[in-house]
């Protein structure tokens, strides 16, 4: 069970199980089982004790692993593996110390450029997640608006701002106004204006 000691450090005690996303403002001591992701903002140290079992993605300034760890680590300052550490996964760190006796297997990127790129990528992934959720919400709203006219109003599909010629109105306005009416455009164009059919393209029904 997570608890805070007198020095305001977060502790996940031995035997405790945590599953989810944990965001901390400082350091933490992990003695139990953690699954998910841990983000430690600030200069504190994130320590995984010898008896801990972790399957998570971790981002912190300083990470000290003494137990079993399976996942990704982003250490903006230092990553340290003690002799009892058993680690697999991808690591991005500014500096790295692996003591004799530790076991580590995985891809590693060390250096300030790698840390900066990973930090930016992590921020972009958060932003893109936020943007995608916002876009999804907007898309849902726009789809609702697009679908609204069809459900709210039953307008004929051919409804455009077309001025019907006099002969069409004289022959039966209702039939001429329906979308199924076959209008001989070339005839009435020739009769009324004498213009070519190109002019009628703007009034296509």
């Amino acid at each position, binding site marked *: 069970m997570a608890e805070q000691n007198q020095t305001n450090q977060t502790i996940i005690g031995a035997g405790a199980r945590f599953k989810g996303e944990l965001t901390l403002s400082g350091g933490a001591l992990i003695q139990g089982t953690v699954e998910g992701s841990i983000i430690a903002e600030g200069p504190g140290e994130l320590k995984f004790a010898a008896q801990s079992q972790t399957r998570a993605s971790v981002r912190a300034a300083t990470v000290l692993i003494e137990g079993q760890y399976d996942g990704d680590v982003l250490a903006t300052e230092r990553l340290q593996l003690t002799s009892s550490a058993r680690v697999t996964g991808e690591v991005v760190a500014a*500096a790295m*110390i*692996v003591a004799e006796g530790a*076991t580590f297997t*995985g*891809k*590693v*990127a*060390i*250096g300030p450029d790698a840390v900066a790129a990973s930090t930016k990528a992590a921020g972009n992934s958060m932003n893109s997640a936020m943007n995608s959720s916002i876009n999804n919400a907007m898309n849902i709203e726009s789809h609702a608006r697009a679908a609204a006219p069809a459900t709210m109003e039953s307008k004929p599909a051919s409804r455009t701002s077309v001025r019907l010629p006099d002969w069409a109105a004289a022959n039966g306005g209702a039939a001429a106004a329906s979308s199924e009416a076959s209008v001989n455009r070339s005839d009435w164009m020739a009769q009324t204006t004498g213009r070519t059919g190109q002019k009628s393209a703007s009034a296509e029904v």
Partner: protein
Amino acid sequence: MAKQVPMRDVRCYHCQQELTVPAAARNTTCPTCYRPLNLDDIEVRGASPSAIIMTVGRLTIEAKAKPLTKRLHAGELLEVRGQFDANATCNGHIHLARSARASGQLKAQSLTAEKGATFTGLIQIGPGTSAIDAATPSRASNS
């Protein structure tokens, strides 16, 4: 009375057999696999054209070194201060100094990468990870 010669324990980088050799010896032949072993400490300073650099002692890639080597092996310590892109194994410790610019694959018993060092690739730390492939040719060179 015979003068006692200081000895040291080394491990063959071909067959991983442990053997004891005089401390001042510069090369020897493994009594198990009969392949030559380089016992010298090696410092790479320039653009070493050697494809493989191996020693049971210490191997140092100096700050301005850009070895073209694709495989490195050190028995005791591999210290990188310069630049390389290779597969490196060490029976002991690998140290990446802050001026190191490395990529490839590292295998060792322990590792230290100072702040400022740059490395990209695979790292494998632990027992039994520093063995060289049996197909590695027995070749070593000094800078």
